[in-house]
């Protein structure tokens, strides 16, 4: 073996690397836990765990420099370390099958977290009793929905993520007879009625609610119970020239309309929607309390799951730790409104949700097998010694 390759293999197969990586991950978890105080859980997950490096801003500059390995780097190196150690040290034999299984389970666990980070999508479905929905809504992402409401039966929606508006460019979509040019974008903002804030410059918007409102940009919030409220100023221009300037924000819950070429379009900034090929109806939400007290005992939602072709039409009871799993999605009982008639279901799409379960079973089996192999070997050796002693 060439010396460089040998030193490379030696580095990646060393137990020392494993220990260093485990210590680093301990420190990462510790610092990330502290950072939650200021950043909140979502920002911490992105910054500390779903990144290669934890970066920090150099004081006085816009430059971010890596200061600590992130979760992906530590996890990736651990994976490499484990894989390399396996290949170079462990021979494939029955005697080692337990170790193989355990390590394979561990590798699967690491990969499972990686896939979850990459693929998992979470959203919320809020249903009043009797209400039916075929979509869930993101709790953190916002979109600009441009809805052609001309058809009496259907809405044609063009959904533009705020990340596209943030770039302040011009958006031209084949389904829209106008261009959308974003002139201003605030990631978080406050809206006030103009007459409550005297002496402010005139609104950039000249259509819809915009002229009556004053936008105050706010710093981004990382608190778990707060949400950033973006605001954008949009200039719309059709083939015949400008159509006007609109102010859009999720704080404006009523849509604003523009009519172009005989079609009416609604502009609505709202939580990003995910539509599904089935619908969920809330039949009943129950909030059980312990008798004689106001202490919650159980929350449950009886829902009806239906597909348009009626091939699926069934009632399901969703309660704590007992989600409805359908179509690659899991609907968890996540919350409710104080009126006790509205349920909030968390909708989780995670194609790799089974991996942690499989890996736990594999690791359990592996450890049991390894223990059993050692035990039988030990018993055999002892009987042999005893037999030898008897004949001696």
């Amino acid at each position, binding site marked *: 073996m060439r010396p*460089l*390759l040998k*030193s*490379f293999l030696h580095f990646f197969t060393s137990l020392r690397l494993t220990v260093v990586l485990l210590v680093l991950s301990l420190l990462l978890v510790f610092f990330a836990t502290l950072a939650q105080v200021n950043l909140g859980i979502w920002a911490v997950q992105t910054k500390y765990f779903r990144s*290669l490096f934890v970066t920090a801003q150099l004081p006085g500059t816009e430059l971010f420099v890596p200061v600590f390995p992130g979760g*992906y*780097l530590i996890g*990736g190196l651990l994976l490499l370390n484990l894989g390399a150690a396996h290949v170079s040290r462990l021979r494939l034999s029955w005697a080692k099958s337990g170790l193989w299984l355990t390590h394979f389970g561990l590798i699967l666990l690491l990969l499972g977290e*990686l896939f979850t*980070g*990459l693929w998992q999508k979470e959203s*919320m479905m*809020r249903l009043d009793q009797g*209400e039916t929905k*075929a979509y869930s*809504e993101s*709790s953190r992402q916002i979109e600009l929905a441009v809805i052609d409401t001309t058809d009496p*039966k*259907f*809405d*044609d*929606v*063009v*959904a533009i*993520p705020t*990340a*596209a508006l943030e770039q302040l460019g011009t958006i031209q979509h084949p389904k829209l007879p106008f261009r959308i040019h974003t002139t201003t974008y605030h990631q978080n903002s406050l809206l*006030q*009625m103009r*007459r*409550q804030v005297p002496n402010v410059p005139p609104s950039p918007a000249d259509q819809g*609610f915009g002229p*009556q*409102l004053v936008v105050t940009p706010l710093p981004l919030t990382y*608190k778990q*119970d*707060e949400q950033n*409220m973006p605001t954008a100023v949009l200039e719309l221009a059709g083939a015949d020239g400008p159509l006007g300037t609109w102010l859009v924000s*999720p*704080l404006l*819950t*009523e849509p604003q309309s523009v009519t172009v070429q005989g079609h009416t379009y609604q502009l609505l*900034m*709202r*939580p990003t929607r995910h*539509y599904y090929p089935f619908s969920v109806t809330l039949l009943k939400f129950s*909030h059980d*309390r312990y008798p*004689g*007290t*106001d*202490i*919650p005992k159980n*929350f449950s939602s009886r829902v009806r799951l239906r597909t348009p072709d009626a091939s699926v039409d069934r009632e399901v009871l969703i309660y704590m730790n007992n989600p409805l799993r359908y179509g690659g999605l899991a609907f968890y009982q996540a*919350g*409710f409104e*104080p*009126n*006790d008639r*509205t349920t909030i279901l968390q909708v989780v799409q995670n194609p790799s949700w089974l991996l942690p379960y499989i890996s736990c079973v594999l690791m359990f089996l592996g450890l049991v097998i390894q223990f059993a192999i050692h035990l039988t070997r030990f018993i055999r050796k002892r009987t042999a010694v005893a037999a030898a002693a008897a004949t001696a």
Partner: protein
Amino acid sequence: MWIPFIHMAPHSRPNLILLLAAGLLLASCKDTKIISYRVPKEPVANAGATPLSAPAPVANTNDLPPAGQGSPAPVAPANDALPPGHPAIEGMPAPGDAGTAMASASVPTAASQPLVWTAPAGWTPKNASAMRKGSYSISGPEGEGDVSITAFPGDVGGNLANVNRWRGQLQLPPVQDVTTAVQPLEANGLHLLVFEGANQGTRMIGVIVPHSDATWFFKLTGPDALIAREKPAFLDFLKTVRAP
């Protein structure tokens, strides 16, 4: 077999890992993809962005001081310029609040069938919070007293549990029989139960009002002397409580 690693200096290995993981970075980039789809129209009641459409502030006459009593009226949000039915913009709760997390599950307040009342002129209205239907402060040379009005669905554990909760707040031992601990009072067809207790310089008058499918609590707490002096005014105030 050609292995690219061996051509690299040892110190550049992390760069290689960076390269290997570049795909991961790309996958986590912000999504700017615009999509289009066709959906059936929603029923009108359901239109709009539901999770963000925080409920419009409920008009609660109780928060306004009675007319002609000289207290400054709270400024109502001037949302008449917005279309009818549009929620007020200013002071709207963050939509993150829309929906109660299970953690705060034990504090849903009763929304149905309100009660109204007329507060004495000397009480200063405070902002009602999510928990409080009404809130006033009473000032005197002895200190400050607090009037809180809350409502919860159901019987909130029953009268005995509520009285013992209040006794616990005063660091008094619990009682076994609720009938000896409270005085009944009738007001405008409502059956009120008045509890009074004092300990270590603090006095509390707590009133339980079962109404509709909820229980309302009117509670006056503060320095012993102030509350004892304010008691007749508080009892008079209780007689103004009624269903609208």
